[in-house]
């Protein structure tokens, strides 16, 4: 008997090998644990699946729909970030159809609010802008909605500019899951949905906000920024997040 097979008394037995799922992504064979998602497997194996709402260290919600993939046997497109793997799954992460949908999603994000890159604090450091370039977006084929969105600069250090928000809810999740303050939430439905602080009060009046700034740094666009930055100066720092999550988990 090799030492690895020895089960020490009082410890859980190693998961039986039969629980490993095998699947194909873009024609290549991979194996995964059953609780893993398609995106987990893709990320581990350096397969690029575009996404905007997903951020390592936060829970997944499937809000942006950019990670939609084709799965054989399903006529629906499935979001890779929240779809668990199963045995024999055949996934296609890129196809002309997916590329067209993804571009369309980005175009719709641009039309939904007022994303004016040239005068945005996050110009050049923006996930939305980067993704649009990465996916080869050259034109927006839908009419812009030009909604009248406001800027809340009542907080001493931070600003929320609803013109630039894509409703990814990263701020909502980081505040709830990591900071534990749950200042942010989403109100309204459909096109009227927007992120709010506390019960839709001015951010500066929020009693729950700890002013930690995590929401600002996970925000993919210029929607959340630190005050006083001129155009193109707002660079987000996110490297803290996976470490923070890791440290929390190791303490539990």
């Amino acid at each position, binding site marked *: 008997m090799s030492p690895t097979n020895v089960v020490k008394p009082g410890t859980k037995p190693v998961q039986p090998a039969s629980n490993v799922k095998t699947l194909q992504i873009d024609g290549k064979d991979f194996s995964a644990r059953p609780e893993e998602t398609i995106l987990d497997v893709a990320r581990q194996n350096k397969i690029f699946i575009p996404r905007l709402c997903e951020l390592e260290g936060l829970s997944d919600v499937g809000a942006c729909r950019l990670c939609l993939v084709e799965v054989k046997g399903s006529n629906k497109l499935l979001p890779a970030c929240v779809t668990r793997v199963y045995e024999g799954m055949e996934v296609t992460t890129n196809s002309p159809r997916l590329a067209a949908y993804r571009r369309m999603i980005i175009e719709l994000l641009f039309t939904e609010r007022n994303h004016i890159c040239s*005068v945005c604090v996050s110009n050049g450091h923006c996930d939305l802008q980067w993704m649009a370039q990465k996916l080869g977006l050259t034109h927006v084929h839908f009419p812009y909605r030009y909604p009248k969105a*406001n*800027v809340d*600069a*009542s907080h001493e250090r931070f600003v929320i500019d609803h013109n630039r928000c894509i409703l990814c809810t990263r701020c909502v999740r980081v505040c709830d899951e990591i900071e534990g303050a749950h200042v942010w939430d989403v109100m309204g439905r459909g096109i009227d949905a927007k992120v709010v602080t506390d019960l839709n009060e001015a951010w500066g009046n929020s009693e729950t906000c700890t002013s930690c700034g995590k929401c600002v740094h996970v925000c993919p666009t210029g929607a959340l920024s630190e005050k*006083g930055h*001129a*155009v193109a100066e707002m660079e987000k720092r996110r490297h803290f997040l996976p470490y923070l999550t890791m440290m929390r988990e190791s303490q539990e």
Partner: protein
Amino acid sequence: MSGVEEPIILLGRNDIEKLLSRHLCAGLIGFRRFRDCGVVEGQEHIVAERRTIVIDPVTRIEGHSKITLHLNEEGQVYDAQFHVTQFRGFEKFCEGRPFSEMPALMARICGICPVSHLIASAKACDALLAVRIPPTADKLRRIFGLAQVVQSHALSLFHLSSPDILLGMDADPAKSNIFGVLEKNPQLAKDGIALRKFGQQIIERLGGKRIHPAWVVPGGVSDPLTADDRDAILKTIPDALAIAERSIVWLKGTIEGFRQEIASFGNFPTLFMGIVKPDGGLTFYDGKIRFVDASGTLVAKDLDPADYQEFLGEKVEPWSYLKSTYYKPKGYSEGVYRVGPLARLNVADRCGTPRADQELAEFQELQRTAVLSSFHYHHARLIEILYCIERMESLLNDPEILDKHVRAIAKANALEGVGAAEAPRGTLFHHYKIDEQGLIRWANLVIATGQNNLAMNKSVLQVAKHYVKGEKITHGMLNRVEAVIRAYDPCLSCSTHAAGQMALQIQLLSPDGAVLDEVVRN
């Protein structure tokens, strides 16, 4: 027919446009001819045998505009208007934005002089922060501004106006461009392009890119200058200086051939306004405002640009999107003043750099009074280019210029701020009001071109009266009308921000000048 008494149904603006465009000649400069007419129950009445000539678009300028010339029965011009037909609206749509975004936002007003807007806007924001910016940041901003004056002046003189000067006012419009200049005098064209490049490359080295750099920020600039960049810029200075010297010799040599134009191109008494240093020297960045009158006498001095509303009035005319600015103490009709290169050299006592001062002395000899003819804007432009290059050299050789402390950090400490600077085309004011959160609540921009508006209109009329005559209207006549506009180097994209619906006025005039009918929409 002068006896029409019945009120005549007026055509809508679109109908007039259609009527006009039906008569539009092909080519860049078309002129249209139509009869003032009205329609009563489908019947066309000829009101008068007068003509209106429309030059649309005015070419080789920055922006969209047209000129209307009104001719009487004898074919003589009795009125003229310079209409700015584009509308931008920056004053309105910046409302609600954090003030820290303003410099870069305002820079988008113009692709030729974004730096001026950056500087005036950042200065207004400095006033909101209520800080004194680090001395190195102040100097770097100055260099940035001077580099832009060089490239913008080069564009105006060489790319837009040199065809008129080199090839003549009557030249074939197909040749009247920088390519035509390249054919006739390759050195001149190359010099102009090189000079613009010189300025643009300095802007790029400092600000990261040539157009719409976001380097100037509230409180200073975002990055210090490196020794490598300084040395690289310094290396290009001797060549640029040589070009400026050559060009000045060339321009002075051509002046003799334009006696008539000099006499009629906006050659009338007005006030002149500009910012000068405390010692009365030429400056583009900071100082107090001076007014001189046509005789060259000081009318007002040491005015604080922040108090501009006390001495400058702004009026909206129904036939243009461009506001007209006037010197308040003299009133709307008498308070016509000019800004820009000609005005700056008229108000300043000296340039403060050796070569430019020599040239200024010669320039002041042109006229015993203030130099009045707008034709001399070109000459003034070249002297300023000379000054800018000399001044940049001395600023770059300042040991402090590489200092790393280039930004003052503060929150908004004042709710209102004015920033003023001398843009290539004249004095530029940015005026902002913010709320407690630091969001813009109100903005007003007073742009050089708007300040020259009244003078430009008077100049157009003067030139048109002098040249546009008789039955046959030639290209050369109309080109002179455009050329006087070019002398001012107006930037219409910069200057059209007045908000609201354009007021529309239609007047029906009888040959004796009586207003038969009038419709005004405000």
